[in-house]
């Protein structure tokens, strides 16, 4: 590494010279790049003064000056020397930390002597050169880098101390904002107070991470209402939640806020249109799309076009990201689109800010733009920048040092060590660093903590374990042995990681088989030739006779839909599509459709089933039917939500339930916001409609379905927080019925193991977010290893 550095420096000297001058003038250290023995000789003195300096730091919190820089020279000057003195610096650093954290007096006096001793030995070693180097205890790269960072960026030293010394959050209630029609609960008023004060603080925003269903939306609306002069605000939400935001804002503010929904084809391209609105609502997808069109352009017949983004050219007062874990991948274009918005205040709302890796937190911190956590620092000079700019892929555009010499503050102090050590030793320190930071920028209340305020019903989670019947067991076993053989051959060849996607597919197949064999067997590419697809009428759920199609692309028997339409005789304005519940428009005399294979592949799995009455259900589907049947009685109506992550499974279930006489509605990803809205309304307002089918991804977040009180999760998902969220759809304010969440699991399949894995993950999440000390001990390094290396 040392050599490489030198060579490169020489090669690029001509170009770098000017930059070097800059550095010199900035640092006021003329000797920066020269490495002389004289300095080595000085090292003793330097270190002495260093100790003093550090003491000063701790007591006076004064910024280090020239002495420090001498020391820096010492370290960077020669690599041999550097490795030798690393031990020292390590020791110093540790002492320093302790001094800062606990008490200065004792440590200083105790450690002074050993330090000098060490120093002497290292000084000797230097002269003996390389031969003795190995004997000295190894210094971790982490400590080496930390020290280097502190040298060039003295302001970083106090980051965590300052954070720790920051006044802890004291709950305080704000007063109910004028014009809010809903009465805020006590903890929501506390949240509002925090929001207001946080917006005024140096962070200019933060993360509101209350658990699901505690009214993050309401609190945010209260913030909007708190000072109407501070506008406009942009709310970025998942598509499912868009209408809900609109409805809630309208409902709770009596229309005092003017809302523009920036979504759909008719959205404006003129900035002026957005003037005068207090709140602009949009979705992540739209935001990403306009950003892409602005920066990368889009291709049309005659070349590449770029279209300036309306949203990126408005100066917002605040930007609010609902379900902010949507930008958990900081490399994604969505994250970039969000980061490029012009705004003064930034907010993230998320009930589960951490889903898989601690690194996901970084993306939020980056959006919030909290210094210095988002910056890349050079370990060789004072270069610091928010962007990773290495135009020639080797050297920093700012300081010309190589990639290896740059590090990200968050990565360095908070992430890497946890990945490396788990929550032990240096890892624990990093862990505490994260928690310290979060305490300053995040507010999280759990339902358990605020149970009395919320008045929420208890939430019961059970796992219903079933067993395959003989046929299913046979089928599963053959798939399992097959998959296992493939996997073993990957292992033998040592190409497991190369075949990750393959292995994942194998696992997916096994999970689908546990749902219903047809999910595997009726996939299109192994579609047996003699099986003919049919159009299914969505009213009678059987093969459609003379199928015709409505404008919203749902197909019915001509007769079924005709009767359905006629049943509305007088009130035609109430006529809605029986599937998606928006206004129905259908040409009853249109010619009948034919089975069209191009469209067919995109059709529901139901159209590929054997309709002649020989179709067999699966254990899991029947288990669900039984559960739903047992809920029915003549004296009460209990509504349920059914989640699955396979849309095909939902199609099958819907079809089976409808055939069994249940009234259901289904929410799927391809629906427009209006369709979703109408579907949800239909479910909420119709007593007879008892089952709501949602795919885990489409409806896992931001749905408010208080009318239902039972949740069924058909297949366990890798990530438990997705499942918690789905439970939270019904477990929220306004729910007066006891809530029960049933997870289905086929005991003799892979699902049993997934549930085991989930429990591990749940432990981790509790440890970080809920700041639960005890949970950390439940977390072994192996667990983290298991999670972080995927």
């Amino acid at each position, binding site marked *: 590494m040392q050599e490489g550095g030198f060579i490169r420096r020489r090669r690029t000297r001509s170009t770098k010279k000017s930059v070097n001058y800059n550095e010199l003038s900035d640092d006021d250290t003329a000797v920066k790049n020269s490495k002389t023995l004289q300095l080595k000789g000085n090292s003793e003195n330097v270190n002495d003064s260093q100790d003093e300096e550090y003491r000063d730091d701790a007591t006076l919190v004064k910024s280090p000056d020239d002495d420090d820089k001498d020391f820096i020279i010492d370290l960077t000057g020669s690599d041999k020397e550097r490795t030798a003195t690393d031990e020292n610096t390590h020791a110093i650093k540790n002492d320093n930390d302790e001094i800062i954290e606990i008490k200065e007096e004792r440590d200083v006096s105790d450690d002074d002597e050993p330090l000098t001793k060490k120093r002497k030995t290292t000084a000797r070693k230097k002269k003996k050169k390389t031969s003795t180097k190995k004997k000295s205890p190894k210094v971790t790269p982490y400590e080496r880098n930390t020290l280097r960072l502190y040298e060039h960026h003295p302001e970083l030293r106090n980051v965590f101390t300052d954070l720790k010394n920051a006044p802890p959050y004291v709950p305080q209630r704000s007063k109910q904002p004028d014009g809010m029609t809903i009465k805020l609960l006590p903890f929501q008023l506390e949240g509002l107070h925090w929001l207001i004060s946080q917006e005024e603080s140096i962070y200019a925003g933060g993360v509101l991470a209350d658990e699901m269903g505690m009214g993050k939306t309401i609190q945010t609306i209260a913030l909007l209402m708190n000072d109407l002069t501070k506008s406009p605000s942009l709310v970025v939400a998942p598509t499912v939640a868009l209408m809900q935001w609109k409805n809630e804002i309208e409902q709770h503010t009596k229309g005092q806020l003017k809302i523009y929904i920036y979504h759909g084809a008719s959205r404006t391209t003129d900035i002026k249109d957005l003037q005068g609105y207090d709140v602009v609502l949009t979705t992540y997808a739209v935001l990403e799309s306009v950003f892409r069109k602005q920066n990368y352009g889009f291709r049309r017949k005659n070349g590449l076009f770029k279209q300036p983004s309306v949203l990126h050219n408005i100066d917002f007062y605040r930007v609010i990201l609902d379900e902010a874990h949507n930008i958990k991948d900081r490399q994604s274009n969505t994250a970039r689109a969000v980061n490029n918005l012009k705004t003064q205040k930034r907010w993230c709302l998320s009930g589960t800010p951490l889903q898989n890796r601690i690194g996901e937190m970084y993306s939020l911190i980056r959006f919030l733009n909290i210094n210095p956590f988002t910056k890349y620092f050079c370990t060789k000079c004072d270069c610091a920048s928010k962007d990773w700019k290495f135009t020639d892929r080797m050297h920093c555009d700012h300081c010309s040092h190589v990639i290896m010499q740059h590090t990200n503050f968050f990565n360095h102090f908070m992430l890497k060590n946890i990945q490396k050590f788990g929550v032990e030793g240096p890892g624990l320190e990093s862990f505490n660093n994260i928690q310290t930071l979060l305490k300053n920028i995040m507010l999280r209340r759990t339902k358990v903590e605020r149970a009395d305020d919320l008045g929420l019903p208890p939430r019961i989670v059970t796992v219903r374990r079933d067993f395959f019947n003989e046929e299913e067991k046979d089928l599963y076993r053959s798939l399992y042995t097959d998959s296992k053989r493939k996997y073993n051959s990957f292992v033998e060849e040592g190409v497991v990681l190369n075949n990750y996607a393959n292995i994942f597919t194998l696992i997916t197949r096994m999970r689908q088989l546990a749902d219903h064999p047809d999910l595997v067997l009726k996939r299109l590419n192994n579609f047996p030739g003699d099986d003919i697809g049919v159009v299914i009428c969505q009213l*009678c759920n059987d093969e459609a006779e*003379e199928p015709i199609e409505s404008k919203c692309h749902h197909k019915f028997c001509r*007769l079924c839909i005709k009767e359905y339409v006629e*049943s509305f005789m007088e009130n035609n304005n109430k006529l809605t599509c029986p599937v998606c519940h928006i206004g129905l428009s259908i040409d009853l005399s249109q010619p009948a*459709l034919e089975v069209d294979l191009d469209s067919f592949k995109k059709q529901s799995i139901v159209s590929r089933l054997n309709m002649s*009455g020989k179709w*067999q259900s699966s254990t899991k589907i029947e288990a669900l039917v039984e559960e739903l049947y047992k809920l029915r009685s003549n004296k009460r109506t209990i509504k349920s939500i059914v989640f699955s992550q396979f849309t095909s499974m939902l199609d099958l279930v819907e079809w089976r339930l409808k055939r069994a006489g249940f009234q259901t509605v289904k929410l799927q990803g391809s629906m427009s916001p209006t369709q979703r809205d109408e579907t949800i309304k239909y479910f909420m307002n119709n*007593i007879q409609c008892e089952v709501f089918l949602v795919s885990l991804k489409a409806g896992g977040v931001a749905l408010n379905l208080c009318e239902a009180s039972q949740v069924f999760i058909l297949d366990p998902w890798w990530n438990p927080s997705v499942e918690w969220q789905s439970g939270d759809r019904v477990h929220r304010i306004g729910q007066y019925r006891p809530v029960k969440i049933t997870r289905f699991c086929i005991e003799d399949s892979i699902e049993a193991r997934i549930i085991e894995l989930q429990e591990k993950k749940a432990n981790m999440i509790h440890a970080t977010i809920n700041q639960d000390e005890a949970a950390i001990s439940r977390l072994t390094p192996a667990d983290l290893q298991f999670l972080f290396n995927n």
Partner: protein
Amino acid sequence: MYRSRNRPKRGGENEVKGPNSALTQFLREEGISAENIKQKWYQRQSKKQEDATDEKKGKAEDDSFTAEISRVVEDEEIDEIGTGSGTETERAQVSYDARMKLVPADSDEEEYETSHISDTPVSLSSANDRESLTKKRQNTAKIIQNRRRKRKRAADLLDRRVNKVSSLQSLCITKISENISKWQKEADESSKLVFNKLRDVLGGVSTANLNNLAKALSKNRALNDHTLQLFLKTDLKRLTFSDCSKISFDGYKTLAIFSPHLTELSLQMCGQLNHESLLYIAEKLPNLKSLNLDGPFLINEDTWEKFFVIMKGRLEEFHISNTHRFTDKSLSNLLINCGSTLVSLGLSRLDSISNYALLPQYLVNDEFHSLCIEYPFNEEDVNDEIIINLLGQIGRTLRKLVLNGCIDLTDSMIINGLTAFIPEKCPLEVLSLEESDQITTDSLSYFFSKVELNNLIECSFRRCLQLGDMAIIELLLNGARDSLRSLNLNSLKELTKEAFVALACPNLTYLDLGFVRCVDDSVIQMLGEQNPNLTVIDVFGDNLVTEKATMRPGLTLIGRQSDSI
């Protein structure tokens, strides 16, 4: 024309309106039409012709009759359609096969889209096809009617509606509750007055029907502060609301004021019951001795304490479920204040209770008869020792024992508890040990051989996964055989057909055999013959039960796949 009652009901659909008479309306709703009857006659004719081929199907009786017909008709139709438009389908077939090869792989994880579909319409307009077209239309109509009938039947099964014709009383009650729900939706402001009036109008309704009305209202989720007024009668002694989630705390108070003579009160899903109203109930209902609360999760420790102090000496039955604020302290308050009078206690899904060991000390009433401990938060909290101690205390008089979801219980509880402390001539009527997967055949066989359960009416071993044939056979050799009315063997996967040979109970009416995989058509037939009073068998997940199963008239299978698919 035929009209379905399965259509989503919207507003005034069921009203008598326009030129239709009430009779037409009624016929229409019940699905009776001249066309239908004609069709049936045709079908019967064609059936006679095909008698030879249909001989085996001919055995089917009453209940499966309509299904039989629909199948026959469908078969015919498929034939006809096949010949009618043979060339077209062939052509479609060819192109289908050709295109099939181009279909790329799909992935099930993705959301598919139904939005871009470009269907090519078929031209059906050649003149000579006209006739066949109209014929086809008729057939289609028939098919669709059959489907609708099938759907209706499936829905009826789901509602456990076994008898076809409902009584006038129940029809009226349904109508009343429907109209009440409708009113509520339409007029929010004026409804209060309406209900006051309504109470006078309905003044003469009997208590039994009032209870039925309460059920119907809960079913429609229409029970709230306004409709509650219908039940405010001063002479009311017992009241059950199945879904109180919309009754506010004020509602409970008015209830307490206007019905002061209540002795038994059952409020299910009472999520808005708060401190104030619970104490109000305790104070204003001096005769209250039985209280059943489900989901009173707003009420905390302090209130429970006050409540039990007020109820001291008069609370005889107390059942509570689904709350996490009923803690160990509340339990000890209950036991200290009311333990000596309690004869019936139910604790279900109480997340904050762990100290069940308190129970044996305090439950000392000589007439204690019902004990339900269900789904403790930590399974270890309810262990063998506690139950054995409890049974030692109250086992002699116990009539109802429900220990659902106490997973920690083992054979020791059965042998050292149930067998040891329950007298040989035991009064036990209800025994439920659901989900106790550690209990084995051996212990239960021993228990059933030692103790005469002459009064056992209801028995459930749902999901006691280890139970095998011998336990069931032993139960049936016991005196319980003659008294048993309901038996739940759901998910006992170890059972084989042999267990059912012995299952011949004269009084058995309900049997749950869901997910007992060995159950097939022959078992169903046998059970039907052996148990004269059996009306319902649940067979969810029993994939060997097919439409060919022969059943005695009056016996209904629920959950059979072939009924709905």
